[in-house]
């Protein structure tokens, strides 16, 4: 992927516009834009300004504590970390095959997580932009505005998320930060009552997930040219696939395709992910830049997540979602499969897949079984990879003979997408900002591009669209020429 607009030739001569923090994403990040006197864009960077340190402070902790501790990375998709860590420690314990009950309970937990996270992102975070327009009235462009203007849509979003969280509660013990998955298996299965309670509502969830796909499809049909062009760029991609090439969000081998669509590696054993993935660092960001080693750090960036998974898998193993995948790929000659906003459509197809998978699992008697744990021959290290809502998530641990973690490496979905998000915002800056007077509506276009990836910068989703935003235009000599601040009450005031 290209590095255009990453670094300006003479930044000291340019003025800087900052979007800080980026809102309606999970966590804290900012965007800086360097412009010349004619408002021509010279540099755009997405910075992740958080430092967490989990890889360091789990060193010395007993390994069985890790799945519960590392999930605290996030309040939105803790299940992904909980399961990736458990999978890594399964491998460390030499457990090659979980019991059927354990694997299905973990899958149920994971699909519950995909359902609630995708619903949260689409309805709560992204729908205000899509329903009202990227540059629409800021006072309405939030979930409260959606509730007022489209109460039925908002209600379905809330209830879809609630259902996913109930699935998590029944499998993990709590809606957020449970303990259900343990190295080697799970600590509970479903009771007959829990199973019946979920079965009562699952068909409604499948129906609403189908409606959500119809909604994003309609939006594409109404705005095809603009949606397709928005932040569009050619990209490589990576995801897990099942042995037969089908989508599998819980387990599989790694599949990577280059910008030209050609396969770089397929069904690659993730236990040696470091043979194919490297991690680059840049002086201006705390977040690493992963790349395919075969292509090098400059050319080897890639993206992960719903769009990559839906377009790179050979099929989706639930019928309704697979039909939607076919329609998505066929739509307008396949143009949406390369669109940044295509992420939203792909995400809703995955939400349907998650709902269908939950339905299938609820009809499987293994989920009320009692064989919960498996054992194996202990290994020194373990790698666990899962397709989290936002993309491929890698956990890697080494454990010593005293059961203490001595090394940990985590590559989270948003890290894989680092370069891709940077390129997307540069494309949008070129398309919408170049040579124009900067307005809040235009700056929101940058955030719309970032939101398409549903980045989890950690956990701060309660902004309700009234994002605190400071924009300062600084002259070449460092003086503030113009500035605007939007505070928590959603007001904009000019600072002389």
């Amino acid at each position, binding site marked *: 992927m290209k590095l255009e607009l990453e670094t300006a030739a003479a930044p000291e001569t340019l003025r800087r516009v900052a979007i800080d923090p980026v809102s309606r994403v999970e966590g804290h990040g900012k965007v800086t834009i360097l412009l010349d006197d004619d408002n021509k864009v010279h540099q755009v960077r997405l910075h992740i300004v958080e430092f967490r340190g989990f890889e360091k402070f789990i060193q*010395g*902790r*007993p390994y*069985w*504590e890790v*799945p*519960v*501790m590392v999930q*605290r990375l996030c309040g939105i998709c803790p299940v992904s970390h909980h399961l990736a860590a458990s999978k890594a420690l399964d491998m460390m314990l030499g457990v090659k095959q979980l019991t059927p009950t354990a694997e299905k309970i973990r899958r149920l937990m994971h699909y519950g997580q995909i359902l609630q996270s995708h619903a949260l992102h689409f309805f709560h975070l992204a729908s205000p932009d899509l329903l009202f327009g990227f540059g629409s009235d800021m006072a309405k462009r939030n979930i409260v505005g959606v509730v007022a203007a489209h109460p039925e849509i908002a209600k379905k979003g809330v209830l879809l998320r609630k259902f996913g969280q109930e699935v998590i509660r029944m499998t*993990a*013990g*709590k809606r957020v*930060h*449970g*303990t*259900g998955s*343990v190295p080697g298996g799970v*600590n*509970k299965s479903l009771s007959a009552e829990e199973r019946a309670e979920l079965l009562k509502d699952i068909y409604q969830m499948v129906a609403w997930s189908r409606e959500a796909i119809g909604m994003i499809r309609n939006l594409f049909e109404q705005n095809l040219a603009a949606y397709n062009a928005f932040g569009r760029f050619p990209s490589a991609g990576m995801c897990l696939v099942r042995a037969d090439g089908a989508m599998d969000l819980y387990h599989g081998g790694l599949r990577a395709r280059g910008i030209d669509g050609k396969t770089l590696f397929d069904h690659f054993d993730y236990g040696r992910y470091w043979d194919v993935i490297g991690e680059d660092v840049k002086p201006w960001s705390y977040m690493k830049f992963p790349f395919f080693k075969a292509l090098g750090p400059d050319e080897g960036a890639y993206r992960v997540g719903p769009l990559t998974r839906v377009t790179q898998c050979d099929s989706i193993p639930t019928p309704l979602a697979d039909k939607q995948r076919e329609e998505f790929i066929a739509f307008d000659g396949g143009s949406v499969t390369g669109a940044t906003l295509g992420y939203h459509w792909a995400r809703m197809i995955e939400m349907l897949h998650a709902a269908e998978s939950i339905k299938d699992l609820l009809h499987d008697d293994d989920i009320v079984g009692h064989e919960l744990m498996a054992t194996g021959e202990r290994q020194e290290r373990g790698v666990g990879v899962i397709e989290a809502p936002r993309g491929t998530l890698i956990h890697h641990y080494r454990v010593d003979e*005293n*059961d*203490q973690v001595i090394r940990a490496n985590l590559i989270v979905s948003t890290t894989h997408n680092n370069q891709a998000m940077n390129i997307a915002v540069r494309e949008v800056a070129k398309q919408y900002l170049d040579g124009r007077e900067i307005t809040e509506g235009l700056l929101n276009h940058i955030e719309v591009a970032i939101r398409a990836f549903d980045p989890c910068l950690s956990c701060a989703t309660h902004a309700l669209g009234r994002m605190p935003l400071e924009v300062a235009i600084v002259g070449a000599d460092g003086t503030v020429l113009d500035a605007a601040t939007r505070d928590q009450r959603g007001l904009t005031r000019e600072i002389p």
Partner: protein
Amino acid sequence: MNETQTFQLDGEDIPFAPGQSIMQAATAHGAYIPHLCWHPDFAAHGSCKLCTVKVNGRFGSSCTMAAQAGMSVENRTAELDDKRRTLLQMLFVEGNHFCPSCEKSGNCALQATAYELKMMSPHFDMFYPDRPVDASHPDVLLDFNRCIMCSLCVTASAEVDGKNIFYMGGRGLLGRRVHVSSESGRLGDTNFALSDRAASICPVGVILPKRRGFAVPIGERKYDKAPISAQVKERV
């Protein structure tokens, strides 16, 4: 002369046998007096002070004070619970008690007592003491970060197991804690066994059987089922 003697605990008549402490008599009757270092199987230690009550208007440790006929004992008053909450807050900040990832969560007397006394925050600044984890024993993990210095492991190892594996050592607020009495100071160099009474006596998450963490799901842990105060009544 066989008439049962009683004292009053928060207005309720509590029968007692001669020689019983206020704590012993109250517990036998199903009345809960908050405590951490007291255990019914061992002699009272009187160190945590959480069981402090007011006897005839004066403060005293209910675990060490003998019950006497006609005593008027205040226990769950706002004044006493407020002081107990402060003691708990000090215990929390003096150690490293991270309940969210602690495998003892739900089975921990310190956590359950904090819930019982409605402790909503640590209030004081955290000390973050530098305490080691001893994973040298093949079956048992020691995480001294969570030690509240109740001494129950010291007593159990000495009096029941006859091994004297643990002792209280070190000086000062940050230095004093339970130590292991081997030459290396490591549990792996002792004859400690998972079957020892001391291995299952810890009210918090210091002495833990290895490789079993989080085996009990949320909802089925000891204090998920009923608050610590109600469990005293249930036992009776």
